[in-house]
């Protein structure tokens, strides 16, 4: 991505704020994500005219209307596909995709998988609130088993999806998790996604205070964070707790396990490697917690290089022109057997 930080090009939050008043419920986590983004953009040196937000349908999908950039509020689930076409044709743009768990993991699950495996240069932000909000409170593909909602009066019997495991299963080259209660951490993750060349997937734990209030409170409330959020740092031992007293090891069966550092010794803690070639370690980390009631890793799980889709497509175009010369329509029409009638 291009960065232009010359002073006359610099922007402020106002340059990224559209004249449309957000229509989210008061207290919605989406407000803090929006604000984090609008404040981050000037820091990145990004340009509003070169930035596009694409979305599907849902509360989160209203996001583009509030960014003073180019934007498309598409149809349910299809934002990654819309963005793929745009990013493939216009590698000069910063293309972001915003959607909720129903939009991106349920109706649009297929497009998520394929945009990630192609490594298209789009930045996908999944606002995960574990509920359908805009349709007023049905269970979503990330809702926990037993969830009582309007469509599951006796509790959900569907096994939920783990969004990060899904993304890593598609071998996404950039995978991260953050939450709506920590602006600095969100901005760090969005920045890393923006800097990444290729598809980036960021799960944002987002509170829906109307239909699923407090879904992540057990881990994201300020007093809970030290003991419940495991902040991943590349090249550092994985540990957490107010005093860093707990940590993660890989046991003899190759499984990750949360331990007391004093019990195993600091030197035996797992060192986080976001650049590991295979996604195995990141995948194991994504399975460490089975829900937002256990210690849960946040941060960058995986950030590896890899051929970016649009540049590969452009390269083939250049190669074809080099090999066959620029297209000549007159010659093309005559490229098969022809005959003349006098």
């Amino acid at each position: 991505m291009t960065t232009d930080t010359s002073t006359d090009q610099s922007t402020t939050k106002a340059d990224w704020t559209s004249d449309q008043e957000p229509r989210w419920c008061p207290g919605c986590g989406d407000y803090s994500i929006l604000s984090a983004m609008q404040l981050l953009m000037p820091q990145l040196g990004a340009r509003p005219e070169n930035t596009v937000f694409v979305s599907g349908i849902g509360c989160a999908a209203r996001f583009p209307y509030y960014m003073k950039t180019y934007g498309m509020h598409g149809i349910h689930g299809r934002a990654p596909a819309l963005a793929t076409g745009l990013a493939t044709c216009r590698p000069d743009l910063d293309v972001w995709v915003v959607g909720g768990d129903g939009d991106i993991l349920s109706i649009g699950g297929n497009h998520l998988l394929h945009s990630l495996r192609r490594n298209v240069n789009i930045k996908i932000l999944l606002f995960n609130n574990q509920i359908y909000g805009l349709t007023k409170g049905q269970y979503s593909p990330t809702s926990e088993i037993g969830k009582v909602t309007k469509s599951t009066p006796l509790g959900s019997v569907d096994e939920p999806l783990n969004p990060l495991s899904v993304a890593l299963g598609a071998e996404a080259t950039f995978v991260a998790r953050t939450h709506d209660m920590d602006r600095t951490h969100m901005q760090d993750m969005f920045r890393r996604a923006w800097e990444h060349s290729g598809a980036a997937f960021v799960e944002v734990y987002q509170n829906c205070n109307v239909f699923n209030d407090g879904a992540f409170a057990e881990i994201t409330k300020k007093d809970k964070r030290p003991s419940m959020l495991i902040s991943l740092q590349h090249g550092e031992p994985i540990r957490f707790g107010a005093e860093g007293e707990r940590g993660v090891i890989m046991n003899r069966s190759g499984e990750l396990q949360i331990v007391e550092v004093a019990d195993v010794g600091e030197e035996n803690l797992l060192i986080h490697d976001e650049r590991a070639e295979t996604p195995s370690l990141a995948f194991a980390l994504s399975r460490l917690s089975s829900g937002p009631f256990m210690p849960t890793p946040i941060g960058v799980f995986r950030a590896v290089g890899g051929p970016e889709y649009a540049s590969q497509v452009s390269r083939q175009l250049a190669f074809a022109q080099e090999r066959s010369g620029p297209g000549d329509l007159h010659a093309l029409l005559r490229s098969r057997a022809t005959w003349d009638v006098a």
Partner: protein
Amino acid sequence: MTDTVIQQPSQRTVEDLDRLVIRFAGDSGDGMQLTGDRFTSASALFGNDLATLPDFPAEIRAPAGTLHGVSAFQVQVASETVTTPGDAPTVLVAMNPAALRSELDRLEVGGTVIINSDAFQERNLDKAGYSDDPLTDGTLDHYTTYLVPMTSLTKEVCKDLGVKPRDAERSKNFFALGVVSWLFDRPTEPTLDWIDMKFGKRPLVAAANSVAFKAGHAFGETTEMFQATYKVRPAELEPGTYTSINGNTALSWGLIAAAQQAKLPLFLASYPITPASDVLHELSGRKNFGVRTFQAEDEIAAVCAAVGASFGGHIGVTTTSGPGLALKAETIGLALSIELPLLVIDIQRGGPSTGLPTKTEASDLNLALYGRHGEAPLPIVAAYSPSQCFFAAIEAVRIALKYRTPVILLSDGYLANGSEPWRLPDLEDLPDISVDFTTQFNDSDEDGNPVFQPYKRAPETLARPWAVPGTPGLMHRVGGLEKEDVTGNISYTPANHGLMTEVRAAKVDGIAADIPPTMLDSDGPATVAVLSWGSVWGSVTSAVRRVRAAGTAVDHLHLTHLNPLHADLGDLLGRYRTVLVPEMNLGQLASIVRSRYLIDVKSINKVEGVPFTASEIAAAIAGAVDDD
């Protein structure tokens, strides 16, 4: 019987034919499409006018020797202009019993059957469901039959090449091609050159095919089996340079031409589907024209990617067939609502559901017109001949760009795979279809500050401005929610939705003033007319000629645009006492015409996976004239 050649010594004559309809039929693995293609190519180079009909099963290789594995290719070659692949074939080449059984009924009585007699063994007869040998039981009594042991003769001539007998057998289609090339006096060089070109990297295969082809030719000349050879003289065609082209190739090249004439890059996003995939294949090989192709994960992703490309200022195109068009409906509605150019190409096939993937039908007109929720009108263009697909593609792109609207272009399986000689157009004559992106503010706010209003329309076209990402100052958001007139902001106001609905309809209706009139073919006063759309044009054109030659007056009206309809159509239709509407559906256009113009047209239907024959339409015209 299988190894006997009927010798009928006689004086050999050369007879002139105005036209020849030949049908090659064999097993899916016998190379019948290739054989037909080569016969067609040689005939085109010889100067005949022609039209082809490939007719193959959906299975890649159905069990060998069975009826459902039969693959056929029909071509009409003529010394006059033709617009159909012919009605009943006059010559049938049958490579095995299944081919004979499945195709013989099509042959005109008294026609010629050329049979690979080696294939008529008991096992193959069983597989084809023959209890008696059709070569001896009287089945062929009403036909002129030539039994040629093609397999064994091919193996024999390939022996010295060092080709394994099993491999040599695969060249028997070239033996058959050699026989008919001799019988119908086709030039041999194009075929031999083509074999060298195509199989140059596999010299043994090339040698076997060449030898088999020459042996077939020599067989015809030396056996005295045939009492006559036939000549179909070159047709009197308009001067120019010609090539042989099928609809899908013409369509692909038309898209490339459209992009050049629009001065915008082309982006094709498609999901593989019969019979549309060849457009994806052809354009994937044209990257040097700056064409980006994208094989999407599904039909919906394909059309969405095309919309994304259009948002970015490229020409977003997606190709599909009926099932795919059904899946794309919601996204087409989005493109319609956000008013961006989009071209959706539907190569129609037999439906509903999976239907007849490899057979033709024209039954998606209602889906194209009405297959979206809400009031969602869009322009529809329909191609009518294989080569005309080139121009239809340019026209569809022109409308999409100029009016910022999704356009559906209808082709069909017959046009897609059928081929004909095409007089190459002068590229200078192609229309300039370029449009301007908006780069400046187009309005001012209450305080007089310049602003960009994404839904402030051009009064003439009602098209909204197209400002693409990367343009400073014109950042704006579009979406599927209803938009406020002019500003494009979300609006749920009742009156505004009414206005926007009417404006979207008016925009499409207004295109009627910007398209050519109805194609009218009239030969003097007539009280009966045939109204056609799509590929049925060919059969109607041929039928109308026949009827006129018999002294009956009939007019032919053809629609190149199905929405909006041509502005002159209502007046034209009012001139006739009887209007016939032949369609490869149960009367979709007929219903539209009835409701729109209150004219009780007579619907003629054929939904059998094959085009109308000219005779069927000529009979309908004759019936209408008698009743008139």
